[in-house]
């Protein structure tokens, strides 16, 4: 087979978003390198960035949404999970008003995703209660 390539991407560990290369040997990710010519990060990474490939194949990684029923987490589909969350949010909003809901977003998402999230909180839920992990 013999194939080795590197994939140019962005570290997902924190909001800095350093430029990284994932090393792929025969279709399996085996390591991370810093992107040497990244305009901002210029080939530097922190210890998390250097090891960011490690969680990809981790046994404990969640790949499906889980729903808690009778005190136990069980796997479910995205449709069901979203349905469940939407129903509950709607109920809380009707019962206690939109300001009883708060949205917490993450530095591990992109700028665009965070924008959409705050828009959704304001326009759909109807509250200004939006915050971010960097401030928690």
């Amino acid at each position, binding site marked *: 087979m*013999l194939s080795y*390539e590197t994939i*140019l991407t962005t570290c997902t560990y924190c909001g800095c978003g350093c430029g990284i*290369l994932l090393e792929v040997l025969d279709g399996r990710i085996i390591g991370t390198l810093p*992107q040497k*010519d990244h305009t901002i990060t210029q080939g530097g990474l922190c210890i998390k960035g250097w090891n960011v490939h490690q969680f990809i194949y981790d046994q404990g990684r969640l790949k499906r949404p889980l729903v808690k029923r009778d005190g136990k987490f069980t796997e479910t589909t995205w449709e069901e999970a979203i349905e469940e969350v939407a129903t509950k949010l709607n109920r809380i909003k009707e019962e206690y008003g939109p300001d009883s809901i708060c949205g917490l977003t993450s530095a591990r998402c992109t700028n665009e995703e965070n924008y959409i999230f705050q828009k959704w909180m304001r326009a759909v839920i109807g509250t200004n209660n939006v915050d971010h992990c960097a401030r928690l």
Partner: protein
Amino acid sequence: MLDENIVSAILGLKLSHGHPIPFLFTKSSELGKWVFDESVRYPLTKILIKIAQKYPDQKIGVVVRGCDERSLIELFKNYQLQKDKVIAIGIPCSQDLANRCRCERPFPSEIEDGEFAKPVEDYSDIEEVEKLPEQERFLYWMSQFGKCIKCYGCRNICPACFCPSCTLEDENLIKPGGMPPEIPIFHLHKAYHMADRCIDCGLCEEACPMGIPVRRLYRKVKKAVKDLFGYIPGENEDEKGPLEFLGDGSYELPGTGK
């Protein structure tokens, strides 16, 4: 080389979204994306170890500058790569890069194309620190080491570092858990360990997110080894490093070459 089956693959750089990134070319049709950009330096010989570990019987070509070739010699010596399984494709560095790197050998032994740049012997970086009074020199290094965020980038990128269990993570030598790591022990350990292996490529310093002049420290130690033992790492394949007699075990590690 690929078509004539001299090598099964060539490790070099390809252009991806405008950036040169490491890639293993296995077909000549892929060579259209081949680039060489001397300002973007990746540790190709170190990457080759990972590939060779899985494919010890394949003969692979690798693009090398002067420093990469020196690292190959160290890796052969230390059984991390097998000499008869590697074909070095030599590329000389420009005079400009040689000057910036203060490189004493800015070219590999054989080059495919281009001109040899003149060797640069310039230790002004070390002299600048050496002329400081002792107390000030100590403070200079301690304030530099104090910036360390223990990313291990200087070790991870180094084409002459390969031990599976690294002294920098040995809790008997360096107290674990702190930030910055225990200084100056952390940096001195690395410097001592690299004393007869460092081929002075400067990738460590380029990888340091805190701008610590680690190469300056390694150059100082390397110079001491040269002055004391007349030994220069990466020069002679048959000459073992003078620190080997200390037998810390790292030289007996089974690599692909043994």
